[in-house]
């Protein structure tokens, strides 16, 4: 299962990836011998307790961290080349909207950086705000929106770049359960409609099982991959699926994996 599949459709390929942070308390093995292949169009969740390196792995893919050794390719390039070509859209834990920009201008920010003309910027801005159900909020400032709406705006901003890949770092972690369910449903629709590859960091088991086609269970100290679970609950999923035996079976396996990988002896 861990053997990387050498097809043309592999967008992210990591082999023997290691990352060690040098801290004042000595080295910290954030990532240890990570082997992972992610295919085009997959929805892959990285799940694990805090300190397991799931966010670090996402940041390595995004070239926000450099691995200490091992190889990783994104679209067949180094992560840095892929970043310079704007291969992905990144959604952070917080919405990270610029408070001095309106929602429209926030969504247009990456487009300004890319040097697109005003007409194209406006077109993509309204398209993507429509997509996340925020049409009509263009002239609002971030503080005038709820947390869930802000996070949707930040997803629209990531989509506006028109990347093939979305990297999402616990995007709904700070939101309440109800808003989270709603955004999960919307995200699933969005993924089905756009066929983008999504790498999604979470520590919620139901969220991972509900959204993913593949779940990567990670464990801490050192951060490593414990299990990779294929998960296909069909295209037409609703939140009700969480009550079905198939769902619960996968959730159970994820939970077992998390428990086994967790070092309780310290």
């Amino acid at each position, binding site marked *: 299962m861990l053997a990387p599949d050498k097809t043309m459709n592999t967008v992210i390929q990591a082999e023997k990836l290691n990352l060690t942070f040098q801290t004042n308390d000595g080295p910290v093995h954030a990532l240890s011998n990570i082997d992972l292949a992610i295919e085009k169009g997959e929805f892959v969740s990285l799940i694990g307790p805090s300190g397991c390196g799931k966010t670090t792995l996402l940041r390595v893919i*995004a*070239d*926000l961290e450099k691995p200490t050794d091992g190889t990783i390719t994104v679209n067949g390039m180094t992560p840095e080349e892929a*970043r*310079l*070509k*704007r291969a*992905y*859209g*990144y959604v*952070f*834990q*917080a919405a*990270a909207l*610029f*408070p*001095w*920009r*309106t929602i429209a201008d926030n969504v247009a*920010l*990456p487009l*300004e*950086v*890319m040097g697109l003309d005003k007409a194209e910027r406006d077109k993509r801005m309204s398209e993507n705000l429509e997509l996340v159900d925020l049409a009509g909020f263009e002239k609002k*400032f971030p*503080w005038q929106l709820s947390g869930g709406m802000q996070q949707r705006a930040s997803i629209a901003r990531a989509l506006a*770049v028109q990347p093939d890949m979305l990297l999402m770092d616990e995007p709904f972690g700070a939101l309440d359960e109800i808003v989270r369910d709603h955004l999960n449903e919307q995200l699933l629709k969005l993924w089905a409609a756009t066929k983008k590859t999504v790498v999604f960091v979470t520590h919620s088991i139901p969220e991972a099982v509900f959204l993913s086609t593949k779940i990567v269970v990670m464990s801490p100290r050192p951060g490593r991959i414990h299990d990779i679970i294929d998960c296909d609950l069909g295209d037409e999923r609703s939140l009700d699926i969480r009550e079905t035996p198939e769902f619960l079976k996968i959730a159970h396996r994820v939970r077992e994996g998390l428990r086994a990988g967790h070092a309780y002896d310290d």
Partner: protein
Amino acid sequence: MLKSRVLPVLTVVVAILALWYAAAVILNASFERDQAERAGTEITFSEILPKTMAQERPVLPAPHQVAVELWETTVNKKITSKRSLVYHGWITLSATLLGFVMGTALGILLAVGIVHSRVLDKSLMPWVITSQTIPILAIAPMIIVVLNAVGITGLVPKALISTYLSFFPVAVGMVKGLRSPEAMHLDLMKTYSASRSDVFWKLRWPSSVPFLFTSMKVAIAASLVGAIVGELPTGAVAGLGARLLAGSYYGQTVQIWSALFAAAIMAAVLVTLVGVAGNWFNRRMGVRPEAAR
């Protein structure tokens, strides 16, 4: 809300005025007693009291004497007259504003350099701080004399002293402001592979605007002090500083105090104007208004 704000302020003003009158009576009374003694007459306290508030050169002029002098020298004098405070105020104000503009520009430039270059950060920052440990009263005459020797006189030397005082708060505030964006926002710009100038203009600069206005409030007050200090060694030709100096030459305490108040009022107005401009700017930038918090 108005009442809760005005009442405490008024209370303090009344208390200060009362203390001031009491101090004026005490400090000016000995002069009246000496006068009476020299004349060989007895003088009672009730006779001294009104006289202490009407002396021509009191140790401490009474508040109403200063108020009358302020009124006389602003409203009742032609603004072209050498005895008009408006005339002297304008001389000081023009040096203040020129120095403030130059100081703000210099402060911003230094901050941009310091934030973008490790070398400048290490080499320049200690000098920026050291520059403010030199007493301005010592360096001001040097600047005036040196510039005079190369033929630069009038407004510019005074403005340069204002610049010297006002660049510092702006430089320090802007270094902080330009470094204020959070790591997540910087990462975000990195995922767009944004250039350094994009990061500066779209993130660092807008983040620093609140810091800029806060430091500009300090800078404009410092500029005024600089302009007044700059007027002292020029031989007391014109400006509020000249009024202060001339007043002390001739023992014109009423004139000193009214020039002092003119300077204080000017400082208050300037700081308020910068504050209003800052609020206006913040609102335009979409900062959440206080009332909605």
